[in-house]
């Protein structure tokens, strides 16, 4: 059975202005729209209504005012009672959120920034102490958690990293090959691909992918745990949350990121040699032969040495953002975003610093 609804309407019957309709939430808009025409006849109105709820009562008070003597006739006792209740409860003024002046705002921001810097230092300090305690007391180490990290953030990342590094190697060879071909210097494609990939792009693309894939997961996981008081629970059980949540990730990524970088190097070269074969008619045999003759192994090591540094950056940024989260669902999203942005930012900055150092020292 459908409930019968009464649309608000104002009509003139036998010289009386009758105001029909339900004073309910469904018709708030209609009532407020009727307000001007109601106001014109408010003295001689009669109300005909079956239903009233609190929202409707509020609209009624809006239209007819708070003086009960000004209310039109026709309300039932229950409806009058409801109106009085709403009147009583609705008296209080609505508090406006305080917006501080610009000076207070500046001060607040500065103290917040200072607080963040403090928290960062605090986190780094705790990380080092936890690491030191672990070295002194290796029995606290949790191998299962470490293997979990290696599997989830290392093994499961293999396909995507292999594919993307392969494509990147192929693209570099393609673009470089077009230029080299015009000079007839086809064979230098080997040095081009090997140097850019082994020194720079292999480690960089791996670190960026892992920061997006795992760093964000670390931040989201720790932020949620933090908000659910799970980290406090660990502390209360006499456990150091760093042992459980951060050190396994740190060690796991220090192990896996170089391995993933090695994989990226290999598939990148593979992609390069494929394009060299198709576009520049350099056979794979020639490619790998020239690679071993002309490209010093030091380029490979320069690339590899960056990987553990990137791992430390990704884990500390992700975990720190997670540990600092407070509030609700918003905080989780915000911290995750920040962790990815900061991790990628720092990875690229550090890569640039490495480049400058290595080229200045003649490597």
């Amino acid at each position: 059975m459908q409930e019968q609804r009464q649309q608000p309407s104002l009509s003139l019957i036998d010289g009386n202005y009758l105001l029909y309709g339900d004073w309910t939430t469904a018709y708030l808009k209609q009532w407020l729209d009727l307000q001007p025409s109601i106001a014109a006849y408010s003295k001689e109105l009669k109300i005909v209504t079956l239903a009233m709820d609190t929202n409707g009562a509020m609209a009624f008070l809006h239209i007819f005012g708070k003086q009960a003597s000004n209310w039109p006739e026709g309300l039932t006792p229950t409806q009058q009672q409801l109106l009085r209740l709403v009147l009583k409860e609705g008296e209080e003024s609505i508090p406006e959120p305080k917006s501080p002046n610009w000076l207070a705002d500046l001060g607040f921001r500065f103290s917040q920034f200072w607080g963040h810097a403090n928290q960062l230092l605090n986190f780094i300090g705790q990380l080092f102490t936890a690491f030191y305690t672990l070295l002194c007391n290796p029995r606290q180490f949790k191998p299962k958690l470490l293997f979990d990290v290696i599997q989830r953030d290392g093994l499961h990342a293999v396909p995507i990293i292999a594919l993307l590094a392969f494509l990147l190697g192929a693209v570099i060879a393609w673009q470089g090959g077009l230029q080299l071909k015009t000079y007839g210097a086809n064979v230098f494609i080997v040095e081009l691909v090997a140097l850019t990939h082994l020194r720079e792009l292999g480690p960089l693309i791996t670190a960026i992918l892992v920061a997006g894939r795992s760093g964000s997961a670390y931040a989201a996981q720790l932020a949620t745990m933090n908000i659910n008081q799970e980290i406090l629970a660990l502390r209360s059980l006499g456990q150091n949350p760093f042992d459980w949540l951060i050190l396994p990730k740190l060690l796991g990524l220090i192990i896996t990121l170089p391995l993933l970088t090695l994989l990226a190097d290999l598939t990148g070269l593979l992609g390069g040699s494929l394009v060299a074969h198709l576009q520049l008619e350099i056979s794979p045999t020639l490619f790998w032969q020239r690679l071993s003759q002309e490209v010093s192994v030091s380029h490979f090591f320069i690339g590899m040495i960056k990987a553990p540094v990137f791992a430390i950056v990704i884990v500390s940024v992700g975990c720190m953002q997670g540990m600092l989260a407070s509030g609700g669902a918003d905080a989780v999203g915000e911290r995750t975003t920040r962790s990815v942005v900061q991790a990628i930012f720092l990875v690229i900055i550090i890569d640039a610093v490495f480049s400058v150092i290595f080229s200045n020292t003649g490597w």
Partner: protein
Amino acid sequence: MQSPNLPLVELKNITTQFGSQVVHQNLNLKINRGERLALVGGSGSGKSVLLSEIALLKTPQAGSVTLFGQATDQLSTNHLIQLRKKMGIMFQQGAMFTSLNLLENIMLPLREHQRLPESFIKELAMLKIKLVGLAASAATKLPQELSGGMLKRAAVARALALDPNLLLLDEPTAGLDPASASDFDDMLLELHATLDLTLILVTHDLDSLWRVSNQVAFLGDKQVLSKAPMEKLTVNSHPVIKHYFANTRAAGARTRGIGVNQG
């Protein structure tokens, strides 16, 4: 208006399953307009699940849910939205949106409901805050800044935003201290008396059962074993019901409850 002799909520032959675990089997329940019904039963008897089925948030594997005289299984999305607007639900943990303050939480459904002036929506939301007995100063606080008792009241305020006819509450007094729980019960009774409300609450709080409910549906053996007022339910001879009420806490709540009812 809906004729008063028709039940407001009617559950027919409800079967609910999670994998191979059957929670309800051919469960039947009628709830009349104006009732204050409590759903009780042991842990895992499917009280909260039943509540979310009434709220149309979960569909049972078999059976029909009739709300306000409308069968819900064939309804279009639009009709479902209309029906949901007539129901308010208070979740166990409050489920307030943590990124919005209390006032904004309550304004959200009102804002989406109709294009009303902002100041009017604010007034409506403020009214709800006052109705549930919260101080005006709580309005600009974020949910995570409120105490447990205040959060529960806030959740009720949001559930009442669109003036529903049916208010569903999942464990409203769980985790409250006795004084707050008792105040909360009073608030529910007051709301029920002043607004045209039907209450359905899932609860383990025996004091609440005696104070708030005038009907209790006991869930057990995948069925509603009995629907009766507390006085009758406590003398029911069904072994499961007997076991539920045969303990010292139940006896204490009973004496308190009868004392309150007489006073």
